[in-house]
């Protein structure tokens, strides 16, 4: 679904992402793990087509993000880590705007908004101005706006931050449903327990380089994701855990069992 090949991005003298290659297959949830400043957000934003990059190729469902961005974005939904939304709109105005932009038909629009807004508990607030929303409500509105598009690829940057436990549980279910329907999910997180339990595949990035990726069971083995991650941070150039693939000889992650 998402193929990133030799992605490189510099900010001035600083290399944010260096020669990163990653594949996110359909039907799988892929967790993107790394320390602050490791290059996760840069990678996600580049894949979402909102950040230009220096080298490499990114394709979504066969569409090149650089040469055919509109087609690539049509099947994608991206949520940044701190979604700033239009505060001059009401919640419903915002969802209608997104629905118009993505051409969601009138017949399904109402039921999709109703379903997801109710599920995330913001159905009673859709008439209020987004400016009056709390951080969590904005996060939920942004999630609803992504889910009503029924995207083929959903990319989320730290989606669980700011969500209440009910909404977080609901989101896990929705991510799984999306993958069960043939879609793909790539999300970054610092909550390693969630990543280990939810993700079919794990990709770990350090200092802009992908240090390991593969099916969660292979990456984690008999250990825990936390231990693997901490070990890798101690020796990011070291050998990958058994069954996982170091970046230099990476294979595409596999669709896995449900979390």
């Amino acid at each position, binding site marked *: 679904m998402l193929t990133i090949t030799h992605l490189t991005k510099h900010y001035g003298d600083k290399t944010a992402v260096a020669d990163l290659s990653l594949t996110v297959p359909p039907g799988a949830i892929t967790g993107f793990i790394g320390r602050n400043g490791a290059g996760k957000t840069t990678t996600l934003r580049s894949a979402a087509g909102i950040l230009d990059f220096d080298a490499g190729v990114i394709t979504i469902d066969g569409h090149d993000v650089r040469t055919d961005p509109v087609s690539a974005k049509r099947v994608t939904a991206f949520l940044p880590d701190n979604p700033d939304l239009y505060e001059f709109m009401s919640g419903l105005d915002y969802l209608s705007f997104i629905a118009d*932009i993505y051409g969601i038909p009138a017949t399904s629009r109402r039921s999709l908004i109703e379903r997801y807004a109710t599920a995330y508990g913001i159905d009673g607030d859709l008439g209020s101005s987004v400016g009056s929303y709390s951080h969590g409500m904005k996060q939920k509105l942004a999630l609803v706006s992504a889910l009503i598009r029924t995207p083929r690829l959903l990319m989320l940057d730290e989606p669980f931050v700011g969500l209440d436990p009910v909404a977080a549980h609901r989101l896990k279910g929705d991510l799984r449903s999306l993958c069960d329907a043939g879609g793909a999910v790539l999300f970054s997180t610092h909550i390693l327990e969630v990543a280990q339990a939810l993700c079919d595949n794990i990709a770990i990035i350090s200092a802009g380089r992908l240090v390991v990726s593969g099916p969660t069971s292979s990456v984690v083995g008999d250990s825990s994701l936390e231990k693997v991650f901490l070990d890798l941070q101690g020796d990011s150039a070291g050998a990958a855990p058994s069954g996982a693939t170091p970046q230099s000889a990476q294979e595409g992650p596999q669709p896995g069992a449900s979390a």
Partner: protein
Amino acid sequence: MTLLWTLTRVQLRGLLTSIGARNTRKSKVRSAWLILALFGALAVYMSSVYSFALAAMLAPTGNADLVLMLMPALGLIFAVLMGSQAAGMFVFAGRDNDLLLALPISRLTLALAKLAAVGIENLLIMACMLLPAGLAYSMHGVTPGWFWPVLILDAVLLALLATAASVLFGLGISVIRNLRQGTTIVNVAGMVLLLALVGGSAVAQVPLMERLTSNPGSVRAGVRTWLAPLAWVRDGAIDGSPGAIALLGLATIVPFAAVAWLVGRAFVALVSGASARRGTAVRVDLGALRTRSPFAALVRREAKRFFGTSIYFLNTGIGLAFLLVGAGYLLVVRSLPNEWWTVASVIAVTPATLAALAASGMLTTVTTTAPSISLEGQRLWIVKSAPLATSTILGAKLAFNVLLMAVGIVPFAIAAAIATRAGIADALLLVALPLAVGVLVAELGLIYNLVWTNLNAANDTIIVKQSAAVVVTLFSGMALVLLAAVAGLAMARPLGASAAFGLVTGVLALLALGGWTLIRTWGVRRFAPLL
């Protein structure tokens, strides 16, 4: 004291880097200083025009010193107008308020630092208003040794008063905005107030000038009675009166201190007032959902931003309001003022052409495009991650601006055509010339905003009122209308006024076409790396 100075520097730097339009911190500060310099230049220009004209008019009767009473008043109005919205947004709704309140700093120190940032801007305006007035006076009257130092001291003191008034107005704006429907109330009230101020001053200007010529003594007596601090400015600078200086100090420092104390006391309540808006949930009927094309949705988004953002509405909607008021006036009286007919005959154009030029001038202030990209701010990711061609996003911004212009120009053109009894050619010119100017200025606004994009401003006020793109667009629009008028008048004699201005309109339309091509090519490339 060291803490206050450190905080003030941080606040001022915050204000400057927010005003600045460039991407690097150094160039942001540089461009911010440039914008401040532009404001100063505007104040110097306004003050020079009025000061030298008034001094020359009043000198023969020995009343040139009245300049030093009248110009401080104009300076105060200018400074308070500039400072109020900035105070409402910067002092009470700055993005750093949570951070500042969490620091172990007294609220009074915090309030003083916030006020000082606004005060420095006001000081620039007051100094740029008073110094040309002093120069104009010095050409007709004696300037003792203390004149300039005292005048500079007066500028500082009046800046304190302007800051106190700005912050009080800003506080009012902030409180009303926190009410339900507060943004709309502020928008409409602000627009009505502005129209009343501009209309009122236009009406009062002629009688004031007549009074200054025929009976300057009564103006002097009136100022001494009702606006005594302005008289103290004159008495301190010219007479060196210590009493006047002390009284002015008292009349300015006390209000400033009182406002600083008030803001310090109520700062937490005011800042947290915004959360009071998080009131009861509002349920909506999903059955009323309508579908639109992506382009229509983008245009609607621009409209919602325009009407839902006070500062945006008030600043870029004023020309539209004037056009609509003008249309109503012309429809009622069904004639242009006599002076217009006279001017039209002197410069050998039809009154309709003159009205078309006036409408063009009005439209140059309706430039919603100039701040529109910067206003996306940290929300730019929404459209950038959407399946939209960049030309569609930019085109929607332009389309909304043109739509807004059409709302003003069509009724005005109809009313002006009736009032001037215009023929077909002139009636067409009434629509086409302002629209061609308007479209070109809207395109220039978009182009300038692509050059000077500021996605990290502390608030919308800074973008709409003080960003480089907006200021340069405003000046470009004025220059464009001036050029169009000069070119049209130059060709009016050989071609006839209607044909000449028709030709000018054609050239402007071609330039507008070129502008759109530039936006679709260079503009799209320029938009790509923005985030």
